[in-house]
């Protein structure tokens, strides 16, 4: 089969050739892992400390499903989802764009027997992996701070990988459309920042006006928060199937769209 599908909307043709591409990114990252880790976890922890302890002192407790929980726990369980989203998004936008457009790494790879679909898959999984790595480090700090000791955090971990996958798929759509780095600002200000405030990370979604809430309930970040937050409280999430499906549909549809747009970009 051809390397770049001529039919833009043809089903993804995937093989194990994504693995050497993933390994390439891994090898680069190994060289920079420690400094990049500091950058990745410093910001979310600052949010947590400033809002959790600062605002938390004013707010006190938040009522959640008939139970009162400390604000820091409420915030930590939501903001870990935001960290997964941000880490995946940054990697699949700025770093993938550097490789694709600036360094022409993808063009080099396609001089070897690797299909474009596999390159896109590798970038998607790579961004999800980096997001999982960041999330793991933040979870470690949260455990150390004693914010939660729920054994169900072990389940939260793979769920957060799914969150990373969903958001890296979505970001790759904008990667495929970008002419330059400036374009990504739109994605952040028009999509991610509003979503951050509508998904119940900083305050419960039942405080939103009903019409806004009706939309907010179906956002992928809301689904992520509704899955992860109960696990922090040592409870099983309600409607887990529905939330899982929301994430999967966003991931699947976004990946397909991202692939079609990337094929269009590379086809000439």
């Amino acid at each position: 089969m051809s390397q770049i599908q001529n039919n833009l909307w043809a089903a993804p043709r995937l093989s194990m050739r994504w693995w050497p591409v993933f390994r390439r990114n891994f090898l680069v990252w190994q060289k920079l892992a420690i400094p990049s880790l500091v950058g990745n976890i410093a910001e979310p922890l600052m949010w947590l400390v400033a809002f959790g302890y600062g605002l938390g002192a004013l707010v006190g407790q938040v009522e959640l499903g008939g139970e009162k929980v400390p604000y820091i726990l409420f915030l930590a369980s939501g903001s870990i989802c935001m960290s997964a989203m941000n880490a995946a998004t940054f990697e699949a936008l700025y770093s993938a764009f550097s490789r694709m457009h600036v360094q022409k790494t993808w063009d080099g790879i396609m001089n070897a027997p690797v299909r474009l679909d596999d390159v896109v898959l590798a970038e998607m999984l790579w961004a999800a992996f980096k997001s999982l790595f960041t999330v793991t480090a933040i979870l470690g700090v949260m455990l150390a701070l004693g914010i939660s000791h729920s054994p169900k955090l072990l389940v939260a971990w793979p769920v957060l990988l799914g969150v990373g996958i969903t958001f890296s798929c979505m970001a790759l759509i904008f990667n495929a459309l970008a002419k330059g780095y400036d374009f990504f600002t739109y994605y952040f200000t028009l999509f991610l920042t509003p979503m951050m405030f509508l998904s119940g990370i900083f305050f419960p979604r039942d405080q939103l006006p009903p019409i806004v809430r009706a939309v907010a309930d179906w956002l992928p970040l809301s689904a992520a928060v509704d899955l992860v937050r109960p696990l922090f409280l040592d409870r099983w999430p309600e409607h887990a199937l529905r939330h899982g499906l929301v994430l999967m549909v966003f991931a699947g549809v976004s990946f397909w769209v991202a692939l079609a747009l990337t094929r269009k970009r590379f086809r000439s």
Partner: protein
Amino acid sequence: MNPTLLSVNHLAKRYGDQTVVNDLSFHIEPGECLGIIGPNGAGKTTTIRMCLGLSEPNGGAITYFGDRHMPGDALTIKARLGVVAQMDTLDPDFTAAENLLVFGRYFGLSDQIIRERIPQLLEYAALSHKADAKPGQLSGGMKRRLSLARALINAPDLLMLDEPTTGLDPQARHLMWERLQVLLQQGKSILLTTHFMDEAERLCNRLLVLDHGRKIAEGKPRDLIAEHLEPEVVEVFGQGAVQLADEASLQVLAQRVEVSGETVFFYTRDSQPLLVALQAWPALRTLHRPSNLEDLFLKLTGRQIREDA
């Protein structure tokens, strides 16, 4: 009998109403070096991109190794090709050796095989002492040689080089030519595009002259010159040289007269009478030389500057 490595038949490519490659056919046999020459915008890079399956032709067929078709069999073909693109795509974060390792993995080669090949390839590229240097620390010539070494990691049957020495200084260019000649002596086959005529003449057994997407000549460099040109050229330049082009007494001594800028070119089969006649203008300077590929190229594609590339 080895099959033809690459056979291109009636290839066509259009962008909108603009035809960039038009009914182009050529082939490469094992051990051959075929050069595609042409001015900017002639369709060289588009042709290579179609041969690499990166651009979809609007017509025609591209067949490798007798029975593999591009783009349908792109992956099996790519496994046996080595490609050096016009722009370096080396990984800036990796050392020279790591660049080779990572690239070899894309071919599905085991790390053990790649690690065996790396020292040989670095030595071949005259980069053994730079194994641990990153591309940013290499000169332009070194980067191109590293790109060439990288293209050889899979021991390809056919090398595709798109303007391999563009942007290099003369020393780096000569070293690159010498390295490519080593490959040809080993029996490798090469398809290269270039707009350096000396490069084409040194390396290529056969040339394809492309202009406006069409093949306008094909053959061995020396045969092409003999076929299209008079064997000798006398260039005359200096104050008032251009008027000589209209001098009837000189016109009869040359088969063809051309003016470019302030220089007159007399193409002739016998330069002696012409040189004697030119002594009547002692203030003008003359350059007498055999005709070469550059003359051929300019005759076939014209002297005007191509801005559209």
